[in-house]
């Protein structure tokens, strides 16, 4: 009964979301408060209903109801409970249900806010969110139903259908296929929800933007309402990306964290438009400029969210993230086509109402720097889009499929990122309206001294790689300038208010959270850049077969192979685990345990053994387990300098976000 119940709820929610859209639109056109309220309430109902549907699926997953095809395909008896439950987003249809549930949650949260002052936005926010929800529910109800079951037809064939075909009997397999082992990792459990949260949260600012375009209320009100939503979306998207990197680093065993895979890029694309959007809305709030541009950016971000989901699910791209090719590709395409055409038409229709209220009158003003930041991000976006679309274009034009590899992205994106980092240092010093070279220089000269000494010092210490020298100089520049900004503010308070250092710092930050939270995020970004430069420029690796007691040397470390054990884990996987000792200058540091897991279904996983410090990681991989014996085994060892700063930066990032977005009295 439960699967039918779950499916029934999906159908009901689908109809409700359509009703919500229609009712809200009627409410607008007939200026009928009753229709509007009816639509809003229908919207509110979708969340409890989808919670129930997702709850049913989770219950089926944890109770091992393998007659349900989805349960069969993503769980098995030996999987621990938490993995069975989180298998909700381990497969295609489950993850779409999860997406819809988040969408309903956000739409509900938005519908429950006080609407007194912005009543005219409400109908269109309901229309946009409920149509987006209806689209994902269409996928669930008609194409990717998570509640289909296995049936055996009289002819003996097994088919997955929602309802029994004529004469068929229900089949309950004894065990499921289990989740892909690569996904059985704590990072994988939170990485997809984070990305989804980021993706879905961007729907809210988009909905308000469309509402502003339709109603013609094109002041910056929509931006002020959705500022926190945008920040939230951006936080989750950023964390989702970092968690994906961490997962790749911990689990995939190739010593890296980012491979410029099309699916990685698909998740990066909305980030590349969301980040400039966060910056350029400030210009609109402060100076009344760039209104058209902001509308364009949020429309683009939303389209890229849907496009990214589409790319990973439709089989259009060649990718190692091998999702099944599925029938939902054309549906996604239709949705993208409709939303982008409607959005662009609306934007063009309101174009003249979105003219700037002020002119840009200095190339050294804060807004000019922000604009430059926007253009650079667009540059990175175009590089990434080009890399993703080029194989398609090339195939159509020349008949050849050409893929661009990581070197293309690294060469094209690297310089743009360098300039972006430099801007992060300069832009906060510039004033709104206008600045002069003199004012900029006065604010920047002191922190520039240690920044310029950095490459000299690094060169003296033996660093000869010019990319690294330039990179570290830029990083030092941003770091010192930003810290100096904090110091200037603190010192001013200490002098004028007679406060102690820490009181002054706390008050400074709490008086202007947005500014100093932003600074913290800038610091986080350059700290992450330290890690990225470290591994990209200075990674070294060696591969050797070692007999027990033998050792290899890499980057000043000595790695000795001590022993090897093979055993069966309780969850059925066969584990081969090596013990190695790491020495430096003859001094024992620690043991590491690289291992090789063979799952019953033949899937394998290479888990590295890592010694990690702030200066570097020593990353040991057991390469080839079948060829090894207790006496001899091949190892690949990577030396990854500074990589930990990438993860440390992401923690500072969260802190900066908390400072910037912590609720305070609404400023009007």
């Amino acid at each position, binding site marked *: 009964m439960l699967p039918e119940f779950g499916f029934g709820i999906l159908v009901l929610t689908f109809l409700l979301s359509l009703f919500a859209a229609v009712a809200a639109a009627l409410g607008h056109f007939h200026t009928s408060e009753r229709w509007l309220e009816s639509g809003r309430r229908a919207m509110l109902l979708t969340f409890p209903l989808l919670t129930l549907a997702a709850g049913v699926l989770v219950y089926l997953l944890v109770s091992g109801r393998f007659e349900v095809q989805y349960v069969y395909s993503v769980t098995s008896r030996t999987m621990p409970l938490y993995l069975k439950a989180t298998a909700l987003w381990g497969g295609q249809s489950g993850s779409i249900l999860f997406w819809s549930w988040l969408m309903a949650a956000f739409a509900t949260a938005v519908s429950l806010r006080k609407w007194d002052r912005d009543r005219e936005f409400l109908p269109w926010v309901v229309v946009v969110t409920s149509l987006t929800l209806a689209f994902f529910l269409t996928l669930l109800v008609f194409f990717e139903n998570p509640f289909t079951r296995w049936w055996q037809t009289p002819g003996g064939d097994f088919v997955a259908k929602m309802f029994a075909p004529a004469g068929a009997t229900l089949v309950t397999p004894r065990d499921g296929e289990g989740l892909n082992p690569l996904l059985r990792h704590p990072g994988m459990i939170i990485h997809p929800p984070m990305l989804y949260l980021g993706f879905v949260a961007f729907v809210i600012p988009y909905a308000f933007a469309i509402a502003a375009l339709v109603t013609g209320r094109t002041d910056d009100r929509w931006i002020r309402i959705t500022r926190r939503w945008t920040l939230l979306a951006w936080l989750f998207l950023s964390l989702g990306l970092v968690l994906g990197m961490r997962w790749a680093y911990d689990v995939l065993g190739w010593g890296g964290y980012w491979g410029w895979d099309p699916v990685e890029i698909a998740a990066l694309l909305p980030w590349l438009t969301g980040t400039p959007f966060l910056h350029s809305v400030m210009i609109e709030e402060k100076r009344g400029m760039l209104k058209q541009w902001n509308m364009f950016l949020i429309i683009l971000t939303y389209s890229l969210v849907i496009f990214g989901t589409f790319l990973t699910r439709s089989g259009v791209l060649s990718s190692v993230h091998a999702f099944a090719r599925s029938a939902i590709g054309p549906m996604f395409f239709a949705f993208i086509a409709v939303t982008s055409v409607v959005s*662009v038409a609306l934007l063009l229709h309101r174009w003249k109402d979105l003219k700037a209220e002020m*002119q*840009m009158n200095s190339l050294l003003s804060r807004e000019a720097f922000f604009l430059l930041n926007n253009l650079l991000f667009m540059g990175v976006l175009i590089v990434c889009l080009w890399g993703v679309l080029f194989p398609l274009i090339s*195939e*159509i034009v020349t008949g050849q499929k050409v893929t661009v590899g*990581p070197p293309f992205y690294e060469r094209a994106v690297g310089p743009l990122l360098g300039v972006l980092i430099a801007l992060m240092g300069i832009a906060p010093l510039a004033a709104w309206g206008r600045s002069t070279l003199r004012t900029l220089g006065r604010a920047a000269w002191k922190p520039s001294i240690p920044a310029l000494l950095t490459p000299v010092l690094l060169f003296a210490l033996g660093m000869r790689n010019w990319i690294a020298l330039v990179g570290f100089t830029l990083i030092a520049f941003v770091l010192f300038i930003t810290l100096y900004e904090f110091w200037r503010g603190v010192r001013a308070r200490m002098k004028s208010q007679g406060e102690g250092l820490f009181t002054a710092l706390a008050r400074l930050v709490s008086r202007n959270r947005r500014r100093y939270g932003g600074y913290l995020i800038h610091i986080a970004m350059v700290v992450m850049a330290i890690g990225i430069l470290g591994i990209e420029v200075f990674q070294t690796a060696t591969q050797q077969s070692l007999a027990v007691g033998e050792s290899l040397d890499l980057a000043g470390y000595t790695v000795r192979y001590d022993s090897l054990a093979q055993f069966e884990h309780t969850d059925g996987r066969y584990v081969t685990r090596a013990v190695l000792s790491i020495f430096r200058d003859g001094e024992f540091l620690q043991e590491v345990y690289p291992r090789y897991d063979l799952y019953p279904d033949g899937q394998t996983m*290479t888990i590295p053994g890592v010694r990690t410090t702030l200066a570097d990681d020593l990353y040991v991989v057991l390469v080839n387990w079948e*060829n090894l014996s207790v006496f001899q085994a091949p190892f690949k060892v990577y030396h990854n300098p500074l990589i930990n700063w990438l993860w440390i930066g992401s923690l500072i990032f969260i802190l900066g976000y908390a400072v910037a977005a912590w609720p305070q009295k609404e400023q009007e």
Partner: protein
Amino acid sequence: MTDTISPKKGVPVWAQVLIWGGLLGLLALVAIGLVRAQRPMLIVGAQVPDFTLPLYEGYDYGGAEEIALSDLRGRVVVVNFWASWCKPCEGEAADLEAAWRLYQPGGEVVFLGVDYVDTEPDARSYLAKFDITYPNGPDMGTEISRIFNRNLGVPETYFIDRSGILRYIKIGPFVSPEEIQAVIEAILLEG
């Protein structure tokens, strides 16, 4: 990008044409990609259409500078797609070579390395680095990959039996020569 405060005007027609053309062009591009993605893939049990692989110098097959699948009828053929920019490929390179050296003397099995979307200098240094000796060549015009039409990425390996029928597909890297050996042995046994 600076906006001038002039009398409010709409978007000029030429700009509208440009915007709509760009948007529809992008959508058309994605649509074509989608249609192509829906093309059928070669599945296990199907006859593999014939193709010809030009070979890199020094990686010839018995002196021939190119090799056609149809020339290899009667032998088991292992077609491995790789690229010099592909990290996972490096993991399996030694295993493939080890398996090749095992079968090469018998002459019953032929390995073909198909270099997918690459440049020759990079490809040659990759082949040299991993001391690869079996026939290798570029996938000119990606014709061979399009025959198999799977290409979720490299590496991908296809096992073709003596009568030219696709018997096994491996997506992603092999982890040991034994894994490759097991597939080949099964195909050899079936006759």
